[in-house]
């Protein structure tokens, strides 16, 4: 028997003769593990996707954190503390999975995020104006993110990502229930509360719908390699079918003059989507991008002394 000390991972070491053989393996339901000699295109694309997810969890966690002191009442403060910890925890798990792909280290990913060199979800480029905005994020935005994560978990050919997604999806499940409970309170609250949520909905509806992205390219490699299990437009449509009637049921108005139920198609239809706002966020040019990135970068700088105490990379100037 030959033995080696672990280079990067516990399992794996598959080889494929070429991309065709690799894709046949994926088609048969094969799982790719970090030690496998995966094609470089797969490594790069999947890494980028997981890094984007990790960045989004971290930026989302920082958004939740901002509202801990402002959450009305002790129970909601506790919920927001727990949710913040969950989101930051998800970022930890995902950064580790991404780092094990051997493209960038954890510190490098964090520094790229804080210097605006890498991307994160469009919804964390907008300002949360009132508590109702935070509820819109906790329910509508999280529901959109949850739907897209579940669709990744459903198949997911990359083993370590699928395993951490199992935990992440389970935790997002009860975040959703917290979110819907908060929405219910606003919907059935005073007219002022109802109006407050309506205004938040006006700000968050389109960013939430845009979170799914424009229609998937016909040859999207992430679909081909079973990282995504559903096309962007299908996920977006399912979201619209669920949330338009749900919000109307709570007597809220969808901020879209064109929204209607098409009897013939038997489904809800929204106006044509303007993708410019989404593209702007991907260039860090969203309404609140600069403040959010600066804020996160300042946190990183302010905690340099901790890393320096442990003599870690990324300690930077004191």
């Amino acid at each position, binding site marked *: 028997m030959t033995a080696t000390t672990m280079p990067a991972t516990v399992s*794996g070491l598959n080889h494929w003769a070429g991309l065709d053989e690799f894709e046949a393996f994926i088609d048969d339901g094969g799982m790719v593990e970090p030690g496998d000699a995966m094609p470089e295109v797969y490594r790069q694309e999947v890494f980028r996707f997981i890094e984007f997810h990790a960045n989004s969890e971290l930026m989302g966690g920082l958004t939740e954190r901002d509202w801990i002191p402002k959450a009305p009442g002790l129970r909601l403060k506790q919920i927001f503390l727990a949710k913040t910890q969950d989101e930051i925890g998800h970022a930890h*798990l995902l950064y580790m999975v991404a780092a094990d792909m051997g493209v960038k280290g954890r510190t490098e990913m964090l520094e790229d995020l804080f210097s605006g060199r890498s991307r994160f979800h469009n919804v964390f480029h907008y300002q949360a104006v009132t508590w109702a905005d935070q509820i819109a994020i906790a329910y509508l935005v999280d529901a959109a993110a949850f739907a897209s994560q579940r669709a990744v978990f459903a198949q997911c050919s990359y083993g370590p990502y699928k395993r951490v997604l199992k935990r992440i999806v389970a935790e997002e499940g009860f975040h959703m229930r917290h979110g819907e409970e908060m929405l219910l309170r606003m919907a059935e609250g005073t007219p002022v509360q109802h109006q407050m949520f309506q205004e938040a909905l006006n700000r968050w509806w389109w960013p939430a719908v845009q979170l799914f992205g424009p229609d998937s390219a016909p040859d999207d490699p992430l679909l081909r390699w079973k990282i995504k299990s559903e096309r962007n437009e299908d996920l977006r449509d399912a979201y619209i079918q669920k949330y338009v009637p749900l919000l109307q049921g709570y007597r809220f108005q969808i901020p879209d003059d064109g929204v209607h139920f098409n009897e013939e198609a038997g489904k809800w239809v929204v106006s044509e989507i303007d993708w410019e706002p989404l593209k702007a966020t991907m260039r860090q040019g969203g309404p609140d991008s600069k403040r959010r990135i600066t804020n996160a970068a300042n946190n990183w700088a302010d905690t340099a002394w901790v890393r320096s105490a442990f003599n870690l990379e990324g300690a930077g100037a004191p």
Partner: protein
Amino acid sequence: MRVYEVFLKRAGKEEFRHAGALEAPDDQMALTYAREAYARRSEGAQMWLVQRANIVAADPADLATNQTKSHRHNDGSVIAARRKQKRAEAKAGGGND
């Protein structure tokens, strides 16, 4: 930084299971991170952390040789066939008794 692999075991009969990995500067910080990242909601009653550098991993090719040793199993098909035949004979002969 050191990389640790995290293993969790629930109370009861279940075995330790691999939960994931983390990076930490030392054992003490690794335990804190692991508790907060992997065991926030009673996912485990016990936890092991193993430094990845200390794991001795087998070459999968050495394990593969053990996947074709049919003489190490017996699926019972020969005996099952005989029982089936006996039942059929009993049923066929049952009418004349």
